[in-house]
């Protein structure tokens, strides 16, 4: 399961709402204890997708590398990635799946008409063919 503390959660929602009607993306840092993850900090990253961003996002690997370095410096772990789905539910789409990585939790925030609506966390498999829903609290 993954639990997101109130401060990083508020920052993620604010980022997702501010990016509306485009998708946003970012990294989540915190602690892991076996299957239990606690997000203590979020880092907003630039959506680097070249093209319309209303339904697409892309992370630059070098930005993710910097987020991992930041986590190490703060004695935390890079736990997962978040992104928003403007005017869509927080499902894990085929595009999400085909461009995912099984190492991390993927939190999707549904933003409806500019306002936060709901969120889900997903754990994609190795073959990028399916993602299991992960218990999420915030």
């Amino acid at each position, binding site marked *: 399961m993954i639990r997101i503390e109130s401060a990083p959660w508020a920052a993620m929602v604010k980022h997702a709402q501010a990016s509306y009607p485009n998708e946003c993306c970012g990294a989540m840092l915190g602690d892991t204890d076996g299957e239990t993850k606690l997000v203590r900090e979020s880092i907003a990253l630039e959506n680097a997708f070249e093209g319309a961003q209303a*339904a697409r996002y892309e992370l630059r690997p*070098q930005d993710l590398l910097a987020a*991992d370095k930041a986590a190490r410096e703060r004695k935390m772990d*890079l736990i997962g990635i978040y992104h928003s789905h*403007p005017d*869509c539910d927080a499902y894990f*789409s085929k595009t999400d799946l085909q461009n995912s990585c099984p190492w991390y939790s993927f939190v999707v925030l549904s933003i409806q008409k500019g306002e936060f609506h709901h969120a889900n966390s997903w754990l994609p498999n190795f073959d*990028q063919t399916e993602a299991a829903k992960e218990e999420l609290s915030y």
Partner: protein
Amino acid sequence: MAKVLIPTPLRQFTAKQDSVTVSGATVGEVLSALTTQFPELRKQIFTDEGKLRSFVNVYLNDEDIRYLGKDATPAADADTLSLVPSIAGGAR
């Protein structure tokens, strides 16, 4: 002996070490030595055919090895290798 930074979810395969120092004259040799030392890591990084998984990027210090010499990129003692996934997506 280059240092390889291990992403959090993969530390379960490296006896919880967040970095591992392994020998190798090139990036390919370093990764080979790493996955020989920690065989369970192999599946995480390489396909059954021995190629890097499509979502895995390897950085030598701050440079993507695809823009250097790929597997043949020389690795020196002071170098740090990072495994960085490619991540993208979208609602549709």
